[in-house]
C-alpha cells in the first residue's frame, strides 16, 4: 500500500456520462479485463459446483431437457404424425443436433440477465468489473454445452450418422451462437434488470421462435416459412453447424459472416453500454 503512493489510481465520480470521454471509457474497460477474467473464472467455478452439488445425478441433468425434446420429436416422426426429411442423417441425430445448438443459443441469451439477478447481493455491495458476470455466464454456458456435445457425438456415432472430420470446426458456429445470444442478452439486460417484462417476454417467444428456426426440421424450399427462415439470422448458423458435422446442406458463408461479424461489432457497443448503465441499475436493485 505504502509503496505505490506516487501512482495511486485517481477516480472521479460526477453526474456526467462517461460516454463524453469515449477513450477513457474504453481504456478503463480494457484495463479491468484481466481482473474481470480471473473473477469470472472463480464465479463460474462457484456456480457450476454449487448447481449440482445437491443433486444425485449431477451433471447428467444438463442433458435431460435436450434429450426429452428430441425424444418427443423422434416419436412424432416415427409415428408419422409429422414427416421430416433429414436426408442422410438419422432423424434422431438431426433433431438432437438442432436442439443442442438451440439450447446453446437460449442459454447464452438468458445468461446476462440471469447473472445480473443472481448476483444482486454482490452488485449492490462491492465494486467489481461487471463484465466478470458476462464472462462467468459464458463459461457456464460453454461448460454445459461441452457435456451436451459429447452426448451428441456418442449418439451420432451409435446411429452411424455421416460424421465428417470437419466436425472439429463446429466450435466456430458454436462460438457464433454464444456471441449472438450473449450480445442480444446484454443489450436486453439493462431494461430486463428494471422490468420483469423482458424475462417474461423472452419466455413467451422462445417456443414460436424455435419453429421459425431450422432446429427440428431443415428449412423448407418454398412458402412463407422459407422466407422467414431465409432472413432468420440463426439459419446460417444452423446450416454451417450441420454442414461441418455431417456434410449435408450448403453453407451460406456470406450469411454466416454477416451475422458473426455484425455480432462482434455490436458486442463492443454492448460491452460499453453494460458498463455505462451498471451504476444506474445498481441504484435500483434491492439486495
Amino acid at each position, binding site marked *: *500500500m*505504502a509503496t505505490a*503512493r*506516487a501512482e*495511486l*489510481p*485517481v*477516480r*472521479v*465520480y*460526477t*453526474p*456526467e*456520462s462517461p*460516454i*463524453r470521454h469515449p477513450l477513457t471509457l474504453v481504456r478503463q474497460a480494457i484495463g479491468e479485463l484481466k*481482473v474481470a477474467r*480471473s*473473477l469470472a473464472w*472463480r*464465479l463460474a467455478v*462457484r*456456480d457450476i*459446483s*454449487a448447481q449440482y*452439488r*445437491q443433486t444425485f445425478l449431477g451433471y447428467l441433468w444438463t442433458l435431460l431437457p435436450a434429450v426429452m425434446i428430441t425424444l418427443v420429436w423422434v416419436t412424432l416422426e416415427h409415428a408419422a404424425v409429422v414427416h421430416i426429411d433429414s436426408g442422410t442423417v438419422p432423424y434422431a441425430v438431426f433433431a438432437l443436433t438442432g436442439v443442442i445448438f438451440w439450447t446453446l443459443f437460449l442459454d447464452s441469451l438468458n445468461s446476462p440477465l440471469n447473472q445480473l439477478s443472481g448476483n444482486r*447481493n*454482490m*452488485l*449492490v*455491495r*462491492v*465494486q*467489481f468489473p461487471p463484465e466478470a458476470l458476462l464472462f462467468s455466464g459464458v463459461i457456464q454456458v460453454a461448460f454445459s454445452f461441452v457435456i451436451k456435445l459429447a452426448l451428441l457425438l456418442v449418439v451420432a456415432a451409435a446411429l452411424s450418422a455421416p460424421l465428417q472430420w470437419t466436425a472439429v470446426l463446429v466450435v466456430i458456429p458454436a462460438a457464433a451462437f454464444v456471441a449472438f445470444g450473449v450480445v442480444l442478452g446484454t443489450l436486453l439486460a*439493462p*431494461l430486463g434488470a*428494471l*422490468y420483469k417484462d423482458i424475462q417474461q417476454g423472452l419466455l413467451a417467444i422462445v417456443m414460436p421462435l424455435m419453429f421459425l428456426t431450422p432446429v427440428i426440421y431443415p428449412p423448407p424450399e418454398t412458402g412463407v416459412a422459407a422466407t422467414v427462415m431465409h432472413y432468420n439470422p440463426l439459419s446460417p448458423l444452423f446450416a454451417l453447424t450441420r454442414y461441418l458435422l455431417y456434410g449435408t446442406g450448403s453453407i451460406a458463408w456470406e450469411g454466416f459472416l454477416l451475422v458473426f461479424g455484425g455480432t462482434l461489432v455490436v458486442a463492443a457497443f454492448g460491452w460499453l*453500454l453494460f458498463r*455505462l*448503465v451498471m*451504476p*444506474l*441499475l*445498481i*441504484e*435500483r436493485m434491492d*439486495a
Partner: protein
Amino acid sequence: MSGAPAVEVSRVSKRYCRSLKRSLWYGVRDIGNEISGRGQQADHLRPSEFWALEDVSFAVERGESLGLVGHNGAGKTTLLKLINGLVKPSAGMITVRGSVRALIALGAGFNPVLTGRENIRVASAVLGFSEQETRDQFDAIVAFSELEEFIDAPVQTYSSGMAARLGFAVAVHTRPDILLVDEVLAVGDLRFGMKCFQKIAEFRAEGGAIILVSHNPYTIRTNCDRVVWLEHGKVREIGDVTDICDAYEVEMGRESTPSLQQRYGDGTIHVSEIECPAEIATGAGLSIRVVLESDRKLDRPIIQVSFTAAAGQHVAINDTVTDQVDIAIERGPNVFELYYPTLPLRPGVYTFNVAVSEQLMTNLRLMDLGVGRIEVRGDRDEHGAGVLALAPIWHVEAASRNEAAR
C-alpha cells in the same frame, strides 16, 4: 499529489425515488440520458423523488478516520455507495485517490452449499484479490476467522455468527488505500468485533484512510478523529469527534424518548399519575411515585420497573418477585413509591418503564414504556463511555510503568 486528500466529496447531491413504478421508469430515462451523453446532472426533483443527499462536502485525509453518524435514512449508506463508485451522484463531484474497499460481511458472495474454503476463494476474488494473493493470505484468513475445524463444511451448516466471521476475515485482509466500514461490527460477538477493530487500527497506522458508519457513538468515539453528522441528507455538523458525538448523543436521547413512549396491555390497568424528576445529577438518589389505576383486583400481581438508555439498551430491570416485595393491586388507584439510593448513570437521557402482570411475568396487563423521562446531568468527559458512570481510582506502580515502556 501526496498531500491531496484520499477522498474529496464536493457539493454532492443524490436524488432517489420513493415509488417503485416511477423509479423503474426514471431508470429507463436515466439510461437514455447516460447513452445520449446528457448524464445524470439534476438540480430538481421529479415527482415522488427526494434528496437522499443534498449538497454534502467533506474530505478525508490519508491516515485519518472519519465517522459518519445520523439517523436511519440520513444518507450514510448512500454516501458510502457513492464513494465506492457503485452509484452515480446527481450533482457534485467525488474524487477518490487510491483503491477503495468496503468492509462488509460478504455473505453476499457466499454460496451456502459450498464449503468455507471454496467461499473464501470466491469472496477474495470478488474483493479484488489476485489468485496469488488469495493463496498467500488463505491461512491468515482461516486463522483470523477461527473456523479451522469447519473450513471444509458447507457454509449452510455455519451459525450466522460463524458466517459473518468468515466474511469479515476475508474483508479485513484486503489492503486498500481507503476502507469503508458500514455498521458491520455489530454482528458477531464482542471479542471478534474487537479483533476487527484491531485490524482497522493497524490499517490506519499504515496510512490508510477510513470512513466508518455507526449508530453507536462509542464505536465512533474510539475509532474516529473527525465526524460528519448527517441529517435528512444534509451535513448538520462536521468537526471534532468529542464535540459532535456529545451533541449527537443528547439529540438521540431527546428524539428517542417520544418514539419509545409506547403502551401495551389489555386495558385492565393504567398509570394514572407519575412523579419522577426530569433531571438528576450523576450518582444522586432518585424517588419515583407511580399511581396505578386498576379496573379490578389483580390476582398475585407483579410490577416490573426498568430504565432504558437512549440507544435502547436496558440499563437495569427490577421486579417485585425477584426483590421479594409483597404487593396487592385493588380496584381503583394504587400508589407505589420507589427509592433508588444512587443512580450512577452516565450523563444522558434515560426512560423509566413500568410493567404490570398477573400470576406470571408473561400474563402482561400493562407495559408502559417511557412513562418517565430522566435527564442525568454531569460532566460528560468525567466518566468515560458506556452506560454506568464509574469513577475508578487508578493505582499505577512504578514497576509496571517501566514494563509498559519496554
